[in-house]
């Protein structure tokens, strides 16, 4: 009798459990069915254009199409991890993802985002107005002849400097060489202002900072600096060693803790007026020209990157933020419609108005009214030649980490410059072999 009671209790409990599970599933299913309108979820780094996208661009798009926009932002330092994590789990949580060009190849080659070609060929969908957008970052958006993304935010790296402090110190203007840059850093370090800053807390900026100095030399081989045309590592040479030494030279005139400064800290320090000159990706200087948040709005000069010799040819690295359609998106056509809406151009003006220095829309970049608001735009016209940042390998995040580790080891006195470059070359070669580029 006791056992029969146990059996009955067990069956009742099991039934209740099954019932609860079923009820919950049915409730969720009903909730999703109840949605009359589609909502596009966009994952982006925490940048000014994201705010513009949520507050104004999204609303205008919703008024026109009835499709809602939800933007979720994460700090730039984690956007890569978050993006790849979402994509590799084939989660439909996000329909559109924006992120840096430095891992564009990785994402596209992995097959987790959709090609735009079929959408572009579909006459029932709005046209992607590519003629409104610059071709600067096409190397990141087009893969094996197919377009996978549009750019949200083109930017070169650049040299930002405080015009007022330069004038006070009697300096003629932006440094043209890295030796001048160092000399100015010494002269400008006074009180609580530092003459320069290295953003070594961020892998992206740490590696980019090194490459900026490297690009001040003539190319090493085949017009390249890290790998030759056969993907053989060519960075192990005295010019790369010299580039490291140039980088370390400014450390005494950088804020204490510069080894831990990421984009956020650097941006804040700049807006607080603590830094006199810096070289960085200019789209990372969020809102520096907005007087309500920046103490130095209107005081900034923007110039091309210093070189190694006064007669150097100006080289800039190209960077941008791309927007992709998640392969697992449940609303790819609607996602494409949003892209097409952006390509009309007005959205990019909103991005600019919200504080984005970089921009992918030609009309915004070539508008003299915008030049008056942002000297960065005027400087853009001076860019004569660019080199693409991405080496063309999907393994770029790991390549970047390898280079960053060695640069950090040298800057923190753990290795000599020669040893750091040698180890950098050896580890890059190991990665290339592992990835199957050669034996």
């Amino acid at each position, binding site marked *: 009798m006791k*056992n029969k009671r*146990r*059996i009955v209790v*067990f069956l009742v409990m099991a039934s209740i*459990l099954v019932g609860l599970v079923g009820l919950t599933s049915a409730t969720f299913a009903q909730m999703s069915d109840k949605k009359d309108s589609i909502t596009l979820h966009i994952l982006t780094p925490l940048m000014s254009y994201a705010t513009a996208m949520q507050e104004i661009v999204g609303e205008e798009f919703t008024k026109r199409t009835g499709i809602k926009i939800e933007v979720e932002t994460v700090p730039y*330092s984690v956007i*890569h*991890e978050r993006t*790849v*994590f979402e994509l*590799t789990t084939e989660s439909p949580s996000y329909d559109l993802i924006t992120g840096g060009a430095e891992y564009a190849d*990785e*994402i596209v*080659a*992995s*097959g*987790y985002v959709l090609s735009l070609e079929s959408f572009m060929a579909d006459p029932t969908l709005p046209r992607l107005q590519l003629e409104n957008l610059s071709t600067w970052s096409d190397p990141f958006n087009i893969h094996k002849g197919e377009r996978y993304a549009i750019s949200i935010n083109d930017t070169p790296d650049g040299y930002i400097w405080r015009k007022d402090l330069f004038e006070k110190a009697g300096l003629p203007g932006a440094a043209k060489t890295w030796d001048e840059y160092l000399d100015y850093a010494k002269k400008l370090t006074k009180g609580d202002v530092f003459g320069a800053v290295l953003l*070594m*807390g961020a892998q992206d900026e740490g590696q980019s900072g090194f490459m900026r100095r490297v690009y001040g030399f003539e190319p090493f081989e085949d017009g390249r600096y890290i790998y030759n045309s056969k993907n053989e590592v060519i960075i192990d040479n005295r010019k790369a060693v010299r580039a490291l030494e140039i980088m370390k030279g400014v450390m005494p005139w950088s*804020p*204490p*803790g*510069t*080894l*831990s*400064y990421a984009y956020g800290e650097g941006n804040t320090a700049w807006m*607080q007026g603590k830094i006199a000159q810096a070289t960085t990706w200019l789209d990372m200087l969020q809102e520096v020209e907005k007087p309500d948040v920046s103490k130095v709005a209107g005081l900034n000069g923007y110039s091309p990157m210093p070189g190694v010799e006064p007669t150097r040819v100006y080289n800039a690295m190209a960077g941008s933020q791309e927007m992709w359609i998640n392969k697992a998106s449940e609303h790819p056509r609607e996602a494409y419609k949003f892209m097409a809406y952006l390509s009309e151009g007005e959205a990019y003006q909103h991005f600019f108005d919200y504080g984005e220095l970089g921009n992918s829309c030609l009309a915004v970049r070539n508008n003299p009214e915008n030049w008056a608001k942002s000297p960065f735009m005027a400087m853009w016209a001076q860019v004569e030649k660019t080199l693409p940042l991405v080496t063309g390998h*999907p*393994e770029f*995040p*790991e390549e970047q*980490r390898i280079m960053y*580790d060695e640069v*950090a*080891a040298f*800057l*923190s*006195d*753990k290795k000599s410059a020669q040893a750091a470059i040698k180890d950098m070359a050896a580890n890059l070669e190991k990665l290339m072999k*592992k*990835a*199957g580029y050669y034996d």
Partner: protein
Amino acid sequence: MVRAKQVSFFTRHISFFFLLPAFALFTAIFMYPTAYSLYVSLFQYSLVHKNIPKLFRGFGNYLEVLADPHFQNSLLITGKFIGIVLPIEALLGIGLALLLNRESRGMRLVRIAFLFPMMITPVTVGLMWRFMYNPEVGFLAHYLIKDLNWLGSTRYALYACALVDVWQWTPFMFLISFAGLRSLPREPVEAAFVDGASRIQIFWYVTIPLLKRVLLIAITLRLLDALKIFDIVYIMTRGGPAVTTDVFSILVYRVGLHFFSVGYAAAMSWIFLAISLTTAIVLLKICKFEI
């Protein structure tokens, strides 16, 4: 003659059937991922680089990990971190337990107050201390040591992280020690007192031996926890500056969830699990506990 009652199979094994749902859940959330992790660790496997083929490597990943200077560095840093935090937490915890092992007005509230740090989530703790360490606006920079960016210094960043861990987890050692003290029999202490032993002699020759097992359990638990340190370090330094706080968990996170080399990351994790288990077993064996 009374016929023996036939017991059905279901009745004989009814406990098994009641345990089945829990076992199914355990298998789904623990056994399967663990087994899959072991399986993946035998392969060269990247989630993002489709041009790197998924190849069976056997123990190749393990050998590569052991020879990897980043892994060796992270072991060194993790060991250094534990070497700093564990003794301090143990000594402070026992000291606080002895100090507060008395009944007086308000003592209960004081004891509860000492537990607060332990109750705060590690992420909040990390953020809070990050602000305190800020050289511009932080409490420590303003009122204690000026012109020192703790988290940006290759020399002091690890100590800065260790201080935070000590602040948060000393209450744990205090709690265990205090519970142990409270559960000690009074007779040996009274007998020693009657025999003329001093307080220090009572503490060293009576209290500590009686508390030994409890303390060692607490130290073992803290050791295993400190080996896994991640959240505080991630929030405050992310392994920097210049990998000086690159503890093991941060390295695995980077390899597994930044580069998505899941096979390599899994191999790292299994090696570290072996190290942790060995350490725990050795520690307990030293004290002649039976596992």
